[in-house]
């Protein structure tokens, strides 16, 4: 049925002389049962509209031509015709109800997130996504990985320009996964066309959605609710894998998380912290404070040669951990772990001419967060 619709569309497009593939114009069929249902509904309603259009405009053009004035046609002068009026009211009602019934059935199915086998919390932040596998102790931020040089035009654009991230959301196929979706700051919207999920993430609310992916693969999407200056730079990438592969990935991530937790207690050296800090800085901080810490005043202050930052390490830590209320600086106490915060603070205190020589230990940060 669905493939028949698609072929009809292909034929109608090529018949009109267009060389374009129908898939370039149409919405994707996607890789879940729901997305296929939605595609089917879309095509059914599309063809209903085509038939209505042909009948209505056909009748109109036929009448215009057949009963034209030059052939001596006389206009009929009547005020009303109750049975025709009832007919043209009843037919649209039947068509609308006929479309509403399957659409409502699909909608009901879309909202039924019960019996999920895996819960993933999705949090929108300016400007990245955070994924948390509930009950699994695995959580990470997913930042865009397209280099700034490609955006500025200094380098040619890659294949997945603006649609690539450092860490994709990894999901198993053939398993019902429930998404709990919220936001830390403003309204974002998590959208992956192939999964037929497009859900607003709203601060203070938790929205639900779910997927059961049928085919392994990499599916890309974007934030689709204007959320600030870097709205275009927070893509979504979902990596769907076979269940066994997923279990292996999850176990590895759990191990890494446990190792990271142990790392809080040990003494860290300046070099390893600065190295780790640089990658955290580039992923999280540089979108506002810029790659060289020069900032973008007045909204985003410079960090390089910032006297207050250089003189007061407690002030610096407080701003990173608790944010600045009323300003764009978010609190990173729950987004970054103590090791990452210690690393990025150590890095910024010793980069771009900020030669304080300070080393902030993860254990100190953990204490500050616990307060």
């Amino acid at each position, binding site marked *: 049925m669905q493939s028949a619709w698609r072929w009809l569309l292909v034929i109608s497009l090529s018949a009109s002389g267009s060389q374009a593939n129908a898939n370039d114009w149409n919405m994707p069929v996607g890789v879940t049962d729901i997305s296929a249902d939605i595609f089917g509904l879309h095509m059914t309603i599309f063809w209903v509209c085509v038939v209505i259009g042909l009948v209505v405009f056909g009748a109109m053009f036929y009448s215009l031509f057949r009963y034209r004035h030059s052939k001596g046609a006389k206009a009929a002068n009547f*005020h*009303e015709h*109750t049975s025709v*009026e*009832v007919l043209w*009211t009843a037919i649209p009602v039947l068509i609308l109800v006929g479309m509403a019934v399957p659409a*409502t059935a699909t909608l009901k199915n879309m909202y039924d997130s019960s019996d999920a086998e895996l819960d993933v919390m999705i949090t929108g932040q300016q400007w990245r996504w955070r994924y948390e596998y509930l009950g699994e102790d695995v959580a990470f931020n997913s930042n865009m990985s397209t280099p700034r040089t490609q955006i500025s035009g200094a380098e040619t654009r890659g294949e997945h320009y603006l649609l690539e991230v450092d860490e994709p959301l990894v999901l198993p196929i053939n398993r019902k996964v429930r998404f709990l979706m919220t936001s830390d700051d403003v309204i974002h919207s998590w959208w992956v066309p192939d999964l037929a999920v497009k859900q607003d993430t709203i601060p203070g609310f938790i929205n639900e959605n779910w997927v059961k992916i049928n085919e392994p693969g990499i599916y890309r999407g974007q934030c689709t609710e204007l959320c600030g200056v870097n709205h275009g730079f927070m893509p979504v990438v979902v990596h769907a894998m076979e269940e066994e592969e997923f279990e292996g990935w999850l176990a590895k991530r759990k191990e890494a998380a446990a190792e990271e937790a142990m790392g809080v207690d040990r003494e860290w050296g300046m070099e390893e912290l600065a190295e780790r800090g640089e990658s955290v800085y580039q992923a999280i901080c540089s979108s506002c404070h810029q790659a060289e810490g020069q900032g973008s005043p007045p909204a985003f202050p410079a960090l390089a040669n910032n006297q207050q930052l250089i003189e007061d390490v407690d002030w610096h830590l407080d701003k990173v951990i608790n944010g600045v209320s009323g300003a764009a600086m978010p609190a990173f106490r729950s987004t970054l772990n103590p090791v990452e915060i210690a690393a990025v603070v150590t890095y910024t205190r010793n980069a771009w001419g900020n030669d304080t020589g300070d080393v902030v230990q993860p254990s100190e940060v953990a204490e500050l967060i616990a307060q």
Partner: protein
Amino acid sequence: MWSVVKSVLAALLGVQSNQKRQEDFSSGKPAAYIVTGIVITLLFVLVLIVLATFAAR
């Protein structure tokens, strides 16, 4: 009474014959049409609620 109900139903659908309209406007009180209209609208909403509850089972 039945003619009032028929007129209200026709109004809900948005289709009424001119002859019937003339009759309605020459005889009958407005209050009867208003009350019948409110009652039928409430009945319609009730039917929708029952249908929705039934469908949500």
